């Protein structure tokens, strides 16, 4: 097929050049990073081997927070798995953006770039509960989504920061949610019993899951800021917890920056084991520009302080902040050079690591429904240096990130490297 490319990457180091430049970083993790950076396109041959009864296929009714890079909702394979167990969370990308191809090579699924074989891959597999309904008739796949070893629930796919047009500029959550609501009838709020029943079914599949992740858009309502959001998470976590013999169960909450009282409630009243609150960009000036809602309602320094305080409650190795790697280079107010951006980001990440907060990143993928939809993400070289730098900070400060690693998440090149810690 012939497509006019909008991006050629000719002025950047190639995958093979980056692999050669960083012999201490595994080629498979560099491949994952580049695939996330550039996106993928499934060939018809690759799609011919999708078996919806076996493989995890995107379903518009499933509450994924963010949209795809091509803005199209299609029943495509959810994501990919490499032979070392590394997940590649990636969505379908327009061909003119020059993505990797997922094709068949010698009858097996493979990543291909410009005719060159890169690696064999596999599709994720569907858990059994996806075909079941709760006693109230709701398809369980609409309550929890699955990754190779993780269950995820989206508490709210509406972010209140967007109400005053102050949503994070890289994010498409509300536009994606709005589009879904246009496409599908709005789903009612999930009831605790439906949550509990779905978890009960998921646990019937031995060896299928190692962790549960809760997340959603920020909810500003309540007596105090985020009180309503905390109440919703407590209700959900308690419903999940009904199914476990132990009070605590491997779990991650990715939420707004809660105050100490709210965090103590979460820890004491539920089985939650870890807490993540995303600063998104580790620089106060860029944060104020890129995340105006977070800046107005909490502020950069206070957000940091709340993360640090949460270490006293959840413990070292159980608290993280997420950043959108590369968004600090967004135009027009981002860093001009990758070197400067990297230095600033890692310095700030170190100030958090010293206090027990670990930093993880996702590869920024400009999506159609976001303010930054027409921008480009950073170079592969940048992402590899960022992954390595964040990993080295964990080594230096003795921080584990087991709740958000290759298996319990799979979306962070830096925490993929934590398999060696």
């Amino acid at each position: 097929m012939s497509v006019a490319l909008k991006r050629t990457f000719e002025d950047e180091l190639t995958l093979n050049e980056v692999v050669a430049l960083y012999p201490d970083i595994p080629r498979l993790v560099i491949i994952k990073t580049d695939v996330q950076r550039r996106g993928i396109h499934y060939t018809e041959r690759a799609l011919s081997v999708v078996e919806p009864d076996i493989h995890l296929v995107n379903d518009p009714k499933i509450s994924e927070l963010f949209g795809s890079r091509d803005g199209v909702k299609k029943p495509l394979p959810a994501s990919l798995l490499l032979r070392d167990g590394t997940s590649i969370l990636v969505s379908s990308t327009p061909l003119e953006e020059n993505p990797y191809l997922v094709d068949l090579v010698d009858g097996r699924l493979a990543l291909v770039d410009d005719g060159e074989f890169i690696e064999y891959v596999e599709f994720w597999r569907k858990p059994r509960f996806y075909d079941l309904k709760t006693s109230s008739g709701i398809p369980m796949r609409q309550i929890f989504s699955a990754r190779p070893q993780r269950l995820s629930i989206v508490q709210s796919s509406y972010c209140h920061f967007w109400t005053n047009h102050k949503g994070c500029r890289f994010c498409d959550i509300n536009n994606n949610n709005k589009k879904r609501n246009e496409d599908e009838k709005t789903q009612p709020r999930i009831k605790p019993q439906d949550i509990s029943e779905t978890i009960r079914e998921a646990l019937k599949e031995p060896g299928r899951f190692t962790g549960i992740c809760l997340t959603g858009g920020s909810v500003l309502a309540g007596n105090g800021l985020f009180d309503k959001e905390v109440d919703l998470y407590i209700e959900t976590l308690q419903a999940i917890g009904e199914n476990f013999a132990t009070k605590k169960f491997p779990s991650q909450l990715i939420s707004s920056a809660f105050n100490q009282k709210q965090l103590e409630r979460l820890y004491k009243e539920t089985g939650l084991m870890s807490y993540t609150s995303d600063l998104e960009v580790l620089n106060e000036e860029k944060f104020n520009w890129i995340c105006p809602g977070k800046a107005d309602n909490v502020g950069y320094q206070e957000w940091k302080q709340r993360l640090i305080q949460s270490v006293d409650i959840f413990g070292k190795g159980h608290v993280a902040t997420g950043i959108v790697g590369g968004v600090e280079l967004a135009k027009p107010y981002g860093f001009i050079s990758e070197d400067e951006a990297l230095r600033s980001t890692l310095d700030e990440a170190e100030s958090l690591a010293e206090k027990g907060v670990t930093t993880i990143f996702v590869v920024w993928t400009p999506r159609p429904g976001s303010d930054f939809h027409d921008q480009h993400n950073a170079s592969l070289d940048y992402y590899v240096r960022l992954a390595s730098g964040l990993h080295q900070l964990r080594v230096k400060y003795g921080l584990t990130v087991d709740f958000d690693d290759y298996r319990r998440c799979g979306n962070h090149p830096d925490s993929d490297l934590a398999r060696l810690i």
Partner: protein
Amino acid sequence: MAIQLSSELKVLLNDRKVYKALATVDEAGIPDVVLKHSIFTAEDGRIHYLELLESSRTNHNLVRAIWFDGTVSIAVTGPDKQRFQIKGRPVEVHITGPLFEKHYVEVRQSLGDVELSGVWVIEPLEVIDENISFRRKEEDLNRPYFRHLDRLAKTPQK
């Protein structure tokens, strides 16, 4: 390049009563050798190893091997003085999916409340017959200087 294991070696590897030792190396080249029952051959001739602990040294070393093209070694000793060493390369690890879940269930039925971190797939590259009489004959033939003279001396007449 991958090789095929002999039928004799496959039988030994699949016998739970046979001792098998898995040797890996860490980042500094320090070896780590552990006795393992959970090593066996698959239908395709490759070796499967069930790793029960995600945080074990062996698992870390296997991750390092699959990432940086490293190799491992498996020593096997049989009831009839068989001694083999297999050099191999970890090429896959199943942390999810049907193969993983099958072994997850089986290993828990067999060992009780244990974890399964992954099913490692090791491609055999070389097999060395370590039986001492075989190795001595081989050395006598190929390296005739490597022997003490008294072994060659005439037996004193009585």
